[in-house]
Structure formats: structure tokens, C-alpha cells
């Protein structure tokens, strides 16, 4: 009669140690296969992909394997007259890729190679009357974009350019009965969205709007018997939630509510021993965004370092609950669950 728990079984033969070199090779090779099918099909997120790859390489201290000049030239080519960035040359400007661009520029300490004033102007124009943000001029509203906007501006030291109070009001209007957050007022809670909203509130110094115990409980209930985390109740585990859930817990000071050893076992089992890279769950195909989420999550979970200086935002607020609150600044665009 009962619903069976959706989960996976980790086989004994699954990898048990971190194949760091293989992952670095996977990422280093990724950008070189320009006529690869998967590579071409994912052009619509290229700039984000570059940010993920670079951050992962930076985490494993191999950033110098990537061509800085080539990357910066590409980033510059993605900026539009309005100040926003597209995912690739010729693609339309959008907040998602504007944040990725800013992140890459901050990572390389090269913000000055683009027109920063215009970037700020672009972000500013996307704020709506109710405080929300649209991703671009076509009007899709989502709390992901609220996060992108404040993260972008905070990285550029220009948070005051927007109406922060209204932006916060909109995000809190998306809070739900379980303490979590959804895309828009009325939308269901989702771990990726929680990361965006909690991150947004941390950056703006308004974490007191979060009921940390209630939300922390919901988040630690994402851990399944296999050790993996899902993004919503009654769903399969997916490695990307190691990022969304862990960072959210870290920000609200409840990361110890997760069983670290079990999660580590699950994450290591998601590695592809053949090609390098991580899959969403043990035995699946490697996917593009996973390397950085997962190396990031390994770091967050393992407490190896509290965050990488160049891409960490130190939130300005009176009452930091735990460590560096915002960790790595990422965007929640790739959810499919």
C-alpha cells in the first residue's frame, strides 16, 4: 500500500575515491572539441558552462590550463549594446549569462575589460514594479533572476543600484508552507529555488526572513538512504542537489544536519571512471554542469575550504549564521526534475 521510496542502489564496484586528475582532464578537453555534438547542442548555455568549468579548475588549482585570453575575448564578444550578456556570440542578452560573465570576469580579476556601467544599467532595467526581476526584455519572472541580479550587482559592488527592499519583498512573497521558496508567488518549493532565494537574502542581509529550523529540516530530509539528495520530496536523488541543498544548509548554518559520509559515498559513486566528470546519479551519463557543482559540493561538504576567495561574496550583514554565507555564486538554470 505504501509508496516505495524512490532511490538508487550504489554497487560495490562504484568509485570510492576522488578522481581529481580525470575530472580536470575532462574539463580541459571539453572546450577543445568544438565540433562535438553535445558541445554544439549546449551553445545556448556556453557562458555559464565556461564559468562552471573555470570554477571547477580553479578549485582543483589548475586554472592555468585554461586560456585566459581566449575566455576573456569570448566574454567580451557576448556583451550587447544594452550591457547584458548572451550565452554565446550572437545570442540574446539575459540575466543568467550576465551573471556568468561577471563571475568569470571576477574570477580573472578582469572586470574592467567590459563596460561595467552598462552591465549595472542592464540589471537595473529588469526590475519590475513589484520588486521582481525578469530574465530579459521578454518578461519571464523568476526568483532565479532575483538572485542573478543581486549577485551580479554585489560582485560589482553596486547593490544600491536597485530597490533592494522591494526585491526582498518579492522573494519573501515566494516563501511557502514548508519554509522553502518557489519560482514565483504560489509556486512549489524546490531545492534549486531555495538556493537562489536564500542566497539572495544572504547577499542583501535579510536572512532573518528564513525560518532556518523549518527550512533546514526540509532540506536535510532531502537525503535518501543511498546518501544522495533529491530536490523535492518523493523524487530520485541527483548529484546537482548536493550543491543546491548543501549550500543552502551552509548559508542557514545547518550543514551538519546532513550525513556527510553517506553523501560523500554517493557523490564519489557518480564519477565516471572512464571519461572523468560526474553523472547525475551512479551509472548515468556524465552531464556538462555537474563537474563544478560537484567539485564545489565536495568542497562545501568536506569543509576543505570555506569558499574560493575570488568568487565568494561576503554578504554584508549584521548576523552571519555560519561561515561565508553565499559560497560560490551559481545560477539555478538547469533543473529538469
Amino acid at each position: 500500500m505504501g509508496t516505495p521510496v524512490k532511490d538508487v542502489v550504489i554497487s560495490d564496484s562504484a568509485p570510492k575515491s576522488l578522481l581529481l586528475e580525470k575530472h580536470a582532464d575532462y574539463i580541459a578537453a571539453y572546450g577543445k572539441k568544438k565540433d562535438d555534438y553535445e558541445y554544439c547542442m549546449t551553445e545556448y548555455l556556453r557562458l555559464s558552462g565556461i564559468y562552471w568549468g573555470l570554477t571547477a579548475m580553479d578549485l582543483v588549482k589548475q586554472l592555468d590550463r585554461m586560456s585566459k585570453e581566449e575566455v576573456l575575448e569570448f566574454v567580451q564578444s557576448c556583451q550587447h549594446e544594452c550591457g547584458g550578456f548572451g550565452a554565446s556570440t550572437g545570442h540574446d542578452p539575459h540575466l543568467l549569462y550576465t551573471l556568468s560573465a561577471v563571475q568569470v570576469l571576477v574570477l580573472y580579476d578582469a572586470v574592467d575589460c567590459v563596460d561595467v556601467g552598462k552591465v549595472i544599467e542592464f540589471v537595473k532595467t529588469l526590475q519590475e514594479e513589484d520588486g521582481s526581476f525578469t530574465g530579459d526584455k521578454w518578461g519571464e519572472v523568476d526568483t532565479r533572476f532575483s538572485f542573478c541580479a543581486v549577485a551580479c550587482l554585489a560582485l560589482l559592488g553596486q547593490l544600491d543600484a536597485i530597490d533592494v527592499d522591494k526585491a526582498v519583498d518579492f522573494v519573501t512573497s515566494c516563501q511557502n508552507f514548508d519554509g522553502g521558496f518557489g519560482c514565483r508567488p504560489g509556486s512549489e518549493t524546490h531545492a534549486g529555488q531555495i538556493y537562489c532565494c536564500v542566497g539572495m537574502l544572504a547577499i542583501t542581509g535579510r536572512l532573518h526572513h528564513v525560518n532556518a529550523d523549518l527550512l533546514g529540516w526540509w532540506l536535510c530530509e532531502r537525503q535518501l538512504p543511498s546518501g544522495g539528495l533529491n530536490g523535492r520530496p518523493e523524487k530520485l536523488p541527483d548529484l546537482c542537489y548536493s550543491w543546491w541543498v548543501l549550500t543552502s544548509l551552509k548559508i542557514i548554518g545547518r550543514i551538519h544536519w546532513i550525513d556527510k559520509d553517506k553523501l560523500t559515498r554517493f557523490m564519489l559513486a557518480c564519477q565516471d571512471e572512464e571519461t572523468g566528470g560526474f553523472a547525475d546519479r551512479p551509472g548515468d551519463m556524465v552531464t556538462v554542469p555537474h563537474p563544478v557543482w560537484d567539485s564545489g559540493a565536495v568542497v562545501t561538504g568536506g569543509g576543505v575550504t570555506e569558499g574560493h576567495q575570488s568568487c565568494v561574496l561576503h554578504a554584508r550583514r549584521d548576523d552571519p549564521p555560519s561561515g561565508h554565507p553565499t559560497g560560490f555564486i551559481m545560477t539555478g538554470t538547469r533543473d529538469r526534475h
Partner: protein
Amino acid sequence: MHGRLKVKSTEEQKEAKRIEQEKKLKLYTAATEEAFRKRKDGEYDDEALKVSGEILYRNSDFSTMWNFRKEIFLHMNDNKNEDELQELFDSELDFLEACLKYNPKSYGTWHHRCFVLDTMPRPDWEKELKLCNLFLQYDERNFHCWDYRRFIVKRSQVTPEAELEFTTNKISSNFSNYSSWHYRSKLLPFIHPDPSSPAGVKEDILLQEYEMVQNAFFTDPDDQSAWFYYRWLLGRGKKTVGINCVCCDKIHSKIIVSTTEPVLVPDTVELKVEVDGSHMPMTWRTASNNIGYSNLWISDIPEDFKISGSCTLTLTLGGSSTSCSCELLLQDDSTEECYFHKDTPAIWFRSELSAAATTTLKRELDSVKELHEMEPENKWVLLTSISLMKSLDSHSYEDTIMDELKTLETIDSHRTSYYRDLRSKYLTENILERTDLSKRCLRLRDVGLTVFYHAKLLPLLVELDLSNNRLTSLRDVRHIYCLQRLCVDDNQISKLQGLESIVHLKEISIRNNEIKREEEFQFLRKCPLVVVNIAGNPVCDSVNVNSVLRNILTGLKKIDDIKIS
């Protein structure tokens, strides 16, 4: 794309796949180039729809291509008559349905559908609602589709009552439907509002919900959805901002105000002080001098403002929705005078239950206990029984609650730390309720705390004993602004971070902990410490603690009970 199983393939298979992909890629690249060319040349025609459609059907996350398509439609909007447009948009809806069947979770496709409905001459909302029903049949948890449904409902004025019925039907066909429970939590406060009740819903309706959710968890006690919803029903309403406690410190010439919720002075609330009716100008700051929300606000008493003789100090907190005030009688000979709100701390931890709710909760507890008999290993049942007992009477049920939390640690070992912290919280709340805080001394020793809860509400404590617990950090202690004597002997503390802002700390006892690094003592630098007990920490074996401490703390008189000469 997530969730693709990796299958081992032979060299031939790999080669075949490569050739196949190469072919597909050629077509895809050619189509993309053609679409970009047409856009650049302003060719917003049927051919442009065809070519962008081929790309988007396979790759619906390609947002630029959706934008192109929108431009084409806006162009045609200006150049075709209404019937032509209606037909065109209808076929676009068919195309989108096909795209959604191929990839039901693309943000771009769903958003484009909203665009079409908002742009077309005669949208058929009923048909759209049916489409939602269909896609929620395929996957009842597809949050994109639920969001689209809310969009349709808003545009077409479907009643919230009808939507509530939809969720009832969804739930009766499958209790395990978190999305439906979620939707109910949004609809109920809208249809049956009662701002004074815990969930914002009228009490008689809440009682009906208890029935429904009980049916759900009796049917499937392992399903999370119903339990989370139940927890919400048991929850309490939004807390209001008020004055927690106030201290007028004449020695340091300061006024310290603690609010029940974090505030930003003067942006969200104003704090006004009057002495015997005359206004005293204040400059409020937080304890750490940062700009931001805080429970604690401090201001110096202006130098030229004389508080002499016995007088009355009135503090008023005024915000957009709240206003309250309190009075302190300052005696001529007193150095310090404090005010504590009469209801605190009880008001923070207890939900005010009406008689009807109490009866219901008791009945609920009986049912949950009955389920526990049948399912002794079910953690949801146990946790809910704990919540119910806590709501009903946290003191008389204290032992049972603690025992059940202990059981949870064993049966749900992934979340041991959660249960331990919860135990610490409940225990602290009970002890706080039994403590007279105006004595400004709190003993929480030997009760197994893993974390120190509610420190934010205790800034006026002068003495705190947290010894013999399982604490690993002192971070929370930083909120206790007035603290002078702290004992944390016999814990697992390895860091002293948190103590740097306790500017009145005179005595600290931190024996038998895990302090290893000499650098930790730097956090004590700003404390006017006179007495330090540090024996029994690893750092004592590696460095000369005496000389390190004496270097940092010039006013030190005693270390580990030995006077400093």
C-alpha cells in the same frame, strides 16, 4: 539532460553513433545559421517559423531562438487579420504541445506558451486548463505545469474554490502528491482567511484539513507529503515585532534595547526615548556596528543630557504596523535599570491554542499514538507526536518528548544531528520558561545541549553557565551583550570565535574543551578579562598558555585559580 543511463557500447556502435550525430549536427548547424541569417535580414516569414521550429523541437532551452519566434509573431500581428492570426496562433499552440511532450520541463517552452496566450486574439482558457490536466496526468509533480496552471487560473478567473476541489481530487487519487498539498496551503488562507490563526486559515476549516491529512498518513505512513503538510497545520502565525527587554546602563552611559524580531533602525522601526516627558536624542547602532537588521540596538546617552534624581524613562518602538512602549523607573542611586517584557519568553515558544484547538490536538495526539503502536519504527509518526505534545504542554510531556527524540536518533541515523539540535532547542525553551530572567543569570549545565538556542533573546544576561554539554561552538554567545561571567567547562569547543564582541566579559571558564590553536586566544583580545580557566585543553600541552594570555590580556588577575603575581 539529466537521467540518461550510461550503456556500454562496442567500437562499432560508437562509430555508428558518431556518424549519426555528425549528420544530425550538420542539419542542426545549418538550420541555426539560416535562422540567425533570416533574423539579421528581417525575414519574419513562414519559413522562419519552420526553421526555428525544427531547432526548438529538439533543443527547447535555446532561448534566443524562442525570442526570434516571438519577434516573428509580433511582426505578423501587425500584418495579418484577426482570423489569420487566430489560426496561426492555434497552430503554434499545437507545435508547443508537441514540444512539451518531447520535453515537458523546459522553461522556455512554457514561457512561450504564456506569450502566445497573451498575444493571440481569442485565447481558449478552458482548453488550456484541459492541457494542464493532461500534463499533470503524465506527471503530477511537474512544477512548470503547475505554474502554468496558476497563470491560466489567474487570466481566466477560475475560482480558487474550483482549484481547491481540483487538489482534493488529485489527493484522493494519490495521497503522495506534494504539489497538490502545497497548492492547498496557498488556496486555503485565500478562501478562508483568518490572520489571527496559526496557518492564516479559519479554525473550522483547519479541523477539516486535519481529517483529510490524517486519512493520508494512515493510508501511507511513509509518505513525506502528508507529514510536511500536517506540520504546517500545527504551525503558528507570523510573529510581530515588540520590545523584548531594555537596559539603561548609567555607568557606561548607554541604553540597550532588544526586540523580539530583527529590525532595522530607523528604516523599519523607530526607537524613541523620553525621560520624564522630555525627548532624548539617540544614535542607534548594532552591537557589531554593522548596518543591517538586528535584535539588539545600542545608543549612548548624550553627554549633555542629565539623568538626575529618580525619573521615568519611556521607550517607544514604532513601526508601520506595530507600536509599543515600556517604562523604566530610574532610582537616583541605581547604576543600572532593566525592563523585561512580562510575557517573554513564554510568548516566543508557545502557540496560543484555543479550547477547540486543544481538544483537536489531544484527539490528534491519540490518533498519532495509535499509529505509533502499529508502526513503532516510523520516524514521521514519532516526530509528529513530539510536535503535538510540544504544542499541547511542553512541560508535562518533557520526559516523553526527550525519550522519543532519543529514539529518533537511532531509527533515523542520517539525521542524528537534527534530532540532537531539536532536543537542545526544546530543552532550552522549557528551562527558559522556568527561569526568572530578571535575575540575569541562566544555568543550562549538564543537559546535553549540542547547540545554544535563543541567545539573541538573552542580551541582558550577566552570568551564563553552559558547562558539561556537547557544544562545539561559542558563536551564539556573541549575542549576549551584557555577559560578564561565562562557564563552558566540559564541552567540545575548539574555537573561541564569538567572544570577540562580548565587551564586558570578566570571567571565562573553558576547562576541558578542544582548544588546540594558540591563535584562538586572539578572539579574547577585546574582553576585559580578569579570570580565565583554561586547563584541560590540548593547547595547554603545546604552548605556555600563561604567558600567551598575559600578553593578550593586560588586566588578567587569575589563570586556573592561580593568582598572577
